[in-house]
């Protein structure tokens, strides 16, 4: 279990950019490359890791916006599913609040963003709270995880 924990905590960032990153990690952890590949495969398979890959910060490519809507309870399932189906939406959460649907829209430029928001507003008949990022105070470098046997 220890190797899973180390992989999760130490390799949320600084994943080696080398021809053989898993062998590099193995060397750092004192295990074999196969053990690293098997452990990572298991973490991906059991969904402890959603992916290993490039993390792109908000607004570094195109524009993004956090949006919220107050959706009537009886329409929530249908509207939530439709919003999720939009390719420009990459996060969509239901939250306990009058504003109960929170999603992030990514667009290639401002005009595209207006089109997407206009389309959502028109299709749902609901107003959208537009909450763009003004400043980011915490540079997301990963999150220290305490293990509770979930893997």
């Amino acid at each position, binding site marked *: 279990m220890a190797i899973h924990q180390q*992989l999760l905590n130490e390799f*949320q*960032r*600084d*994943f080696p950019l*080398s*021809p053989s*990153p*898993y062998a590099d990690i193995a060397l750092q952890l004192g295990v074999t490359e196969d053990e690293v590949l098997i452990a*990572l495969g298991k973490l*991906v398979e059991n*969904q*402890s*890791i*959603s*992916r*290993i*890959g*490039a*993390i*792109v910060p908000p*607004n*570094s*490519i*195109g*524009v993004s916006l*956090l949006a*919220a809507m107050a959706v009537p309870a009886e329409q929530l399932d249908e509207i*939530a599913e439709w919003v999720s189906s939009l*390719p420009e*939406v*990459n*996060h*969509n*959460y*239901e*939250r*306990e*609040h009058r*504003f109960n649907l*929170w999603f992030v829209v*990514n667009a*290639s*430029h*401002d005009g595209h963003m207006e089109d997407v928001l206009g389309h959502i507003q028109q299709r749902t008949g609901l107003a959208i*709270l537009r*909450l*763009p*990022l003004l*400043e*980011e*105070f*915490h540079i*997301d470098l*990963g*999150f220290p*995880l305490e*293990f*509770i046997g*979930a893997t």
Partner: protein
Amino acid sequence: MDDPILLDETDRRIIRATQSGLPLVPRPYHVIAEKLGLTADEVMARIEDLIEFGIIRRIGAVPNHYKLGYTANGMTVWDVPDEQVDVLGKRIGALDCVSHCYHRPRYLPQWPYNLFAMVHGRSREEVEAKANTIAGLLGEHNRAHTILYSTRILKKTGLRIGD
């Protein structure tokens, strides 16, 4: 940023290919390179540049907090004076228990909150305890706050890069 940074099509293809998941094989960049008709050296050099320019923040494993037992996901939102938000945001963003911290506009009268701090916990009690820590740091500058718990994650993917 109003103007998207100019990336060429190769950059976009590399980001797309690496974002969805680095292959779990001994030479993952070679696999990506082959798919894109490039060399592994070229792929790695471009990724290095993209990291340097801040287009890619990092390459890493993205943990699924929910699966790891952090089932309470609280978006804590705070109404603090605009002239204090930078100082306070930096202080809150530095807390270990906060995974993201943002200044966002208010949307009056429906939405008075201008500071967002994401807090993950294994229970709502744990999230509330962390929110109390934040409230303690904000002190008198905290004019109102609430916690919005997520009840369903409907979609969570990496950024899709348009054409």
